[in-house]
């Protein structure tokens, strides 16, 4: 393990103060888990950090925040450990270190994605396909995207296995995962315990803005993913190749998903810009904004491609969209996107306790 001991030590110091206070017990899953411990090992802190949704309720309610000498800022302390754990647990580790906090590098990766697709379209061409396949053949697309899909899955699988060991989670039970998925589905931990939402964009005011934006992003992404999955099944199993009509399953799923993704990412960036950055992970703001931007761009370029798919701009738009998708997938384990998987793992671990 190569996590930063100063970050762990600071989180430990703060967790011990929280454990002597307990006023925040009702806000989220972190505090009951924290109060069940008496001493905090590195694994415990990593688990608490990944359980924390950064709703910030505890910060604004805390009587020990600066200028008080105890200088509590639990959302930041846990965000720092969380961010560090993603970098440390990433496979390969060097990629996690490179991208997590580096918005510029994420943008560069996206541009490389565009370039790669332009190159592929020019060099590999259509080989007699129609529609989008007139730009790049189906086989060429599969050849590019199958590895780009399998690699992040393998990488994240390895990371989650490392995580499970790091936090000493014990045997896995399906019932835990079911409970965790249920909690993630409506983001119970962003409701603030009282159901009024979280603190984010306007200091101590509670609102559901962040939860709603986050829900839009998550369900938008899942719908887009479902659209691709359905299309794959239709292509191979039902012998129904693209293009599909407006009322087909892939289009309905993809369009609604794309709209949700664009709206969600736009709102998320707006909220992030208004939030207090000192309550998030140190130095991670740029990387987070770049990631949300890339994800939103995937949705937006997909929608534009659909709207202008019958025009001369189509080949250009297709390359841009697919380039963004490629960058997004390849970076998945090394950007903020990874948090979804770790969060689900943390909720699953917590459900077993």
């Amino acid at each position, binding site marked *: 393990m190569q996590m930063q001991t100063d970050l762990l030590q600071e989180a430990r110091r703060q967790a*011990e*103060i929280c*454990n*002597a*206070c*307990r*006023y*925040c*017990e*009702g*806000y989220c899953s972190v505090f*009951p888990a924290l*109060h069940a411990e*008496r001493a905090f090992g590195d694994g415990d802190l990593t688990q608490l950090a990944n359980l924390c949704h950064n709703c910030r*309720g*505890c910060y*604004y*309610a*805390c*009587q*020990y*925040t*600066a*200028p*008080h*000498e*105890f200088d509590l800022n639990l959302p930041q302390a846990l965000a720092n450990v969380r961010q560090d754990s993603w970098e440390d647990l990433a496979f390969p580790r060097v990629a996690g270190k490179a991208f997590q906090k580096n918005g510029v590098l994420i943008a560069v990766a996206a541009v490389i994605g565009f370039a790669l697709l332009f190159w592929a379209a020019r060099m590999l061409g259509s080989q007699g396909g129609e529609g989008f396949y007139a730009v790049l053949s189906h086989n060429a697309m599969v050849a590019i995207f199958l590895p780009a899909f399998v690699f992040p899955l393998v990488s994240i699988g390895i990371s989650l296995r490392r995580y499970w060991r790091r936090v000493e989670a014990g045997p896995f039970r399906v019932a835990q995962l079911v409970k965790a998925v249920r909690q993630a589905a409506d983001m119970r931990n962003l409701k*603030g*315990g*009282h159901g*009024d939402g979280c603190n984010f964009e306007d200091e*101590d*005011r509670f609102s559901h803005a962040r939860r709603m934006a986050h829900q839009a992003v998550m369900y938008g992404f899942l719908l887009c993913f479902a659209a691709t999955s359905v299309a794959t099944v239709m292509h191979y199993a039902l012998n129904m190749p693209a293009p599909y009509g407006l009322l087909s399953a892939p289009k309905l799923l993809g369009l609604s998903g794309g709209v949700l993704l664009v709206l969600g990412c736009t709102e998320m960036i707006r909220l992030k810009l208004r939030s207090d950055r000192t309550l998030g992970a140190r130095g991670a703001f740029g990387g987070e904004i770049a990631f949300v931007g890339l994800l939103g761009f995937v949705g937006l370029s997909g929608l534009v491609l659909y709207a202008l798919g019958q025009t001369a701009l189509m080949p250009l738009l297709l390359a841009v969209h697919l380039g963004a998708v490629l960058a997004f997938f390849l970076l998945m384990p090394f950007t903020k996107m990874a948090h979804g998987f770790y969060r689900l793992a943390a909720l699953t671990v917590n459900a077993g306790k």
Partner: protein
Amino acid sequence: MTLSDTPDLVVIGGGNAALCAAITAAEAGARVLILEAAPKPYRGGNSRHTRNFRCMHHGPLGPLTDSYTEEEYLADLLKVTGGKTHEGLARLAIRSSEECLPWMEQHGVRFQPSLSGTLSLARTNAFFLGGGKGLVNAYYRTAERLGVRVAYEASVTHLELNDDRIDFIDYTQNGETHRVAPKSVVVASGGFQADTDWLARAWGPAAKNFLIRGTPYNRGVVLADLLDQGVEQVGDPTQCHAVAIDGRAPKFDGGIVTRLDCVPFSIVVNKNAERFYDEGEDVWPKRYAIWGRLVAAQPDQVGYVIIDAKSLNLFMPSVFPPIKADTLEELAEKMDLPAEALAKTVAEFNAACGDTSGFHPTELDGVATTGLTPPKTNWARPITEPPFYGYSLRTGVTFTYLGLKVDERAQCAIGNRPVSNLWAAGETMAGSILGQGYLAGFGMTIGTVFGRIAGKEAAAHANAN
């Protein structure tokens, strides 16, 4: 401040009682200005450190289970005050508490189930989600939505009392002096415990060594100013409510995390390594408060708790880790205690311990010493199992009893007549009800009930004049 800006009503203070008064008055149509001495991050006085509200109820109410009747509530209060209670005002506070809880929820306060380690209060006390600062934040949001203006770092220096009326208030803010002449004034600015000179005058020089558990802004400036001008006072001017807290706590504002719950499982010695009181007299919540005085009576106002490894996990963790050593000699050295004397005290204690098979950490188990002075009458197990742990104890002042005497309309008096436009709420008048002792969550009840009464009466006066 221009004439059109002049508020109808000024609330002095920025904690729970002040906010309840300001919100109630603003809802009655008054233009309200809050003068809060603290800067914004420290707003809220001692309410920042509170966590619950003791509430009468017939049947389940909000987070509260079962029921808690007026008679039971009053009996609990009389027990802790030893009868030093104004029964009329106490009954008013208790009776009104039931309608306060939904009012609090309507004005933004959110409750949570009883915290871990506080199950004994689940029936009687409603816990604020996030604690008192969460409550204070919610009330400031509500007040500002109602048009209440808030001036932070606004220290009131003088209230000009003429005959039976407050004519104007002087305060300073950002180094400038301001004068404001509202129609009504509500004082909700707490006691004087943060003025350690005053404490030392009242209690004796030992008070210089006390720690103040709450806000450093309750210096009693307004209280002293009004008492000097003859406004009626109530409560023992020499007394404060104090508990024993971790000796390493900050001078001010250490709050809840500095409490130590380990005394029943320990022996407590003074700086000469001598025991001075029965550590096992009763369960800790019932004995918490007396140890502030016990420690205050020891040389240098300091005590030392000694436990061994078998007791370490029997109590709630506190903010500072205990001092740890493999031998008693080493522990004595680390804690600056005379090693020989400590060894002797522990040996005598251990020898006086008997059969410990009946030990039960959460009940009066009768596991007692024999032939020891002072005895330990429960949880007496020999201190033998290394490593040994120690904490220092100091007196932590929660609040002072001296305050403004009010009637059932929360109005202040001079001689035998009311001051026509002056009301008081919260800690600054709590001495009217609490003569001594303290009942968990009752301070917030007094603040909420009398804050609302003061706000209503003061607004009615302002609206009529």
